């Protein structure tokens, strides 16, 4: 029995379902996700926590798409070097995407995995949805 139990612990939990947080297009085509709390997560995570995560993601994407001096300079430089600069340098957007990936990883490790959830980086879905995987909770007394 104990052996079986430990074996189960070693395995990754089974995926129960997936929730998809869609994009929020009310402000145009800028990358922004809906902060509306999905029903499936109601018993799995705090509403506040979820909204905070999504809001942070939205802010990061807004930073990536910001039309500022940085992006302008980058464009000029690329033009002048006949775009060969892209071979050497990482674009501003890519830099922020790395930041986002790190943030999601950190959120997963600290908050979501202990709750039996997993966030998937939306870039893998073409920035269309934030996929939240809900894992099966086999512990006694769970929903």
């Amino acid at each position, binding site marked *: 029995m104990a052996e079986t139990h430990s074996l189960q612990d070693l395995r990754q939990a089974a995926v129960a379902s997936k929730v998809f947080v869609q994009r929020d297009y009310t402000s145009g085509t800028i990358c922004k996700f809906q902060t509306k709390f999905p029903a499936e997560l109601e018993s799995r995570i705090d509403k506040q926590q979820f909204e905070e995560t999504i809001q942070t993601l939205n802010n990061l994407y807004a930073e990536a798409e910001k039309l500022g001096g940085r992006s302008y300079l980058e464009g000029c430089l690329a033009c002048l070097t006949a775009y060969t600069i892209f071979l050497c340098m990482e674009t501003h957007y890519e830099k922020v995407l790395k930041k986002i990936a790190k943030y999601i990883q950190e959120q997963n490790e600290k908050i979501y995995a202990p709750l039996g959830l997993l966030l998937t980086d939306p870039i893998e879905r073409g920035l269309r949805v934030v996929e939240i995987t809900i*894992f099966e909770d086999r512990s006694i007394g769970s929903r």
Partner: protein
Amino acid sequence: MPSGSMSGGLSGPTSPPHTTVPSKPLRPSRYVPVSAATAFLVGATTLFFCFTCPWLSEQFSIAVPIYNGIMFLFVLANFCMATFMDPGIFPRAEEDEDKEDDFRAPLYKTVEIRGIQVRMKWCSTCRFYRPPRCSHCSVCDNCVEDFDHHCPWVNNCIGRRNYRYFFLFLLSLTAHIMGVFGFGLLYILYHTQQLDRVHSAVTMAVMCVSGLFFIPVVGLTGFHVVLVARGRTTNEQVTGKFRGGVNPFTNGCLRNVSHVLCSSQAPRYLGRKRKAQTVSVQPPFLRPQLTEAQLAAKVLDNGIQGDLHRSKSSLMESQSADAEPPPPPPPKPELRYPGLSRGPAGHSEESSLLNKAPPTPTMFKYRPTYSGPGKNHTALTHAYANQMSRRDSLKESSLLQSSQQPGYRSEPSLDGHEGGGVEQSGPERTSGGPGGPPGSGITGYSLGGRSYPSFSDPTVLAGGASRSSSVRSSHNAPPSEATTSTSYKSLANQTPPPAPRNGSLSYDSLLTPSESPDFESAVPEMSPGRPRSPVVGYSSPYLSAQIAQQREAELHQPCASSTALLASPQHAGYLRGSTSSPPAPPERERERLLHDSQPPHHHHHHHHHHHHHHRPPRFSRPPLLSDSGPSQSSYPYRTRSTDTPLPPTTHPPRSPHPPPLGKSLSYSSAAAAEMQYRLVRKASASVGGGGIQAPKDEIQMKSYSRTNGQPKPSSTPSSPSNPVSVSTRPGQAYSSAGSSQSPAHKPGGGVKKVTGVGGTTYEISV
């Protein structure tokens, strides 16, 4: 390494996303324009540098070739970036993402962008609702973000990521052409006495080429300057989306220009390194503290319905909040009759639907799930069940299959009103039967599906598969966001459609004409092959919405007149002018017409089920039946009997008010008449007279003949009346479940069994 940004977009298979993408066949014709453009650009400029520039640099200044050299380099760099850069291709959605929007989900989702309703269309190829400004390129077979156009000169789509380079390419090319032409002219002016020299000849040739290309390039450049200033894409401009309306994507001229030129390079979606998931998720899991309210809610709610509702609503913006039944299990090929399992749910929904007010126009209201069979739906199902049970199921499925040919047919006649589409979904839902052709307007056929477990999936699926491919191709036709509001995306999907939907194909198509909204949308999508101007994006939705609403209202009629409802919408399309029930034209006559009509319509539609390319997805178009035009009304017949797809129709379906029952009866007889055609074709048995009112048929014929130049058939008595009663049973039967039995149960002497198209056997009283 950002070098990946240079990849992709090249002619030929693009780098596949992490979801598999079928490799595209090599099409050499694709490379002709880009090769020619490259050849002219590089060739002419090289000649210019070799023959004209040396003298110019000596005569004037070394700056001349340097300037031209830099300009040429700039042109080449932008040309390469525009050619080879991934325009912003969306990777295909993974399967589990699709499950959220099940097969009953609408074809369109509306989203509000800065106060303006924008439709997001379901892409059957990519399996997601296309984000605003995204379009599916048929050449590249990809959904592209901020799709501008597919440029043959660079053999690549122009989208969010490479629009800047394309725009700069145009600007720089204009300047380059002007420079080459100008300096060439200068050379010639100084060498008027030495024009016989090779250098002069070459310079003149280069001038000719550059002068020739100057006009179209300048035109295109000017066009794009205007587009950039207005914040529009070529796609939006050409389809007239914002004609007379407000563009929700514009931020003002200056901001638009800076967005194009100065924004950071958008990221690639395809070909990204997928990070391995390092976080391990293992139970036991923590649980958040539940508040009192949450606990109370949990107690009251069994957690299933509520969760589904909430998740659906949370996922959909501006979706109607109508109560929805629990979504059926995702369609699987082996799952034949989901509708059956949802029977009880359907009933409950039906009653709820009856009590509810008609939903808002479909354009603005999209039900994530088919809210359930409307009363019609249920009644129809019953009627069909009763009626069909006596029939050969195989024949039924074959009938369905054949009936699937016409694109319109697949239109979910009842569920035309996607948005509010509760009722419409009804028939769809009930059909629950065979998987049915994906993408074909199955909804209409749902009726048949449910009650006929015997429907063979393979036949239906086969029929549907072919259609779905055509559907998809039509989907990817020149972008024209049609005004279709009510179509189920499942219909658009190529993958095996939900079983219920397919089942009802044959009967629903007969009885329930396509939805007008679908009709409208179908119009633009229908004709990749038709030279039609794109449908205005935003005005028609309203119209279609109105029509859809009308239809919904019609469909919401009380049960007793369900027949009328069923009949009227369809027959509105079918039988344009027929109000009486004249004797049906002779079977032979009709048959002749049918056959005759086929060849002329070859160019419109193929006889085979499979070729519906030029037709918009069935589901998206309202069943042609609903089309008010006489020609259109005849189509359903024609299509059905001849198994040819209905020609695309551009007329917005006009859904008249539900006719009185008598009328509906006549309408249904028209439907029966169509069935009759099939019967005649398939069965040798002569059908007794009566039944189908000749005028209707004649009218159909008329439009038929008008369309295909056939002489108007003389009306002859035919057996239609009986078949009519029989065929119309599905519609009528719904209202009176039991009454439909009677025709079938006529005494043996007076009943003839006829096999209709698709193998359905009908008992016709002779």
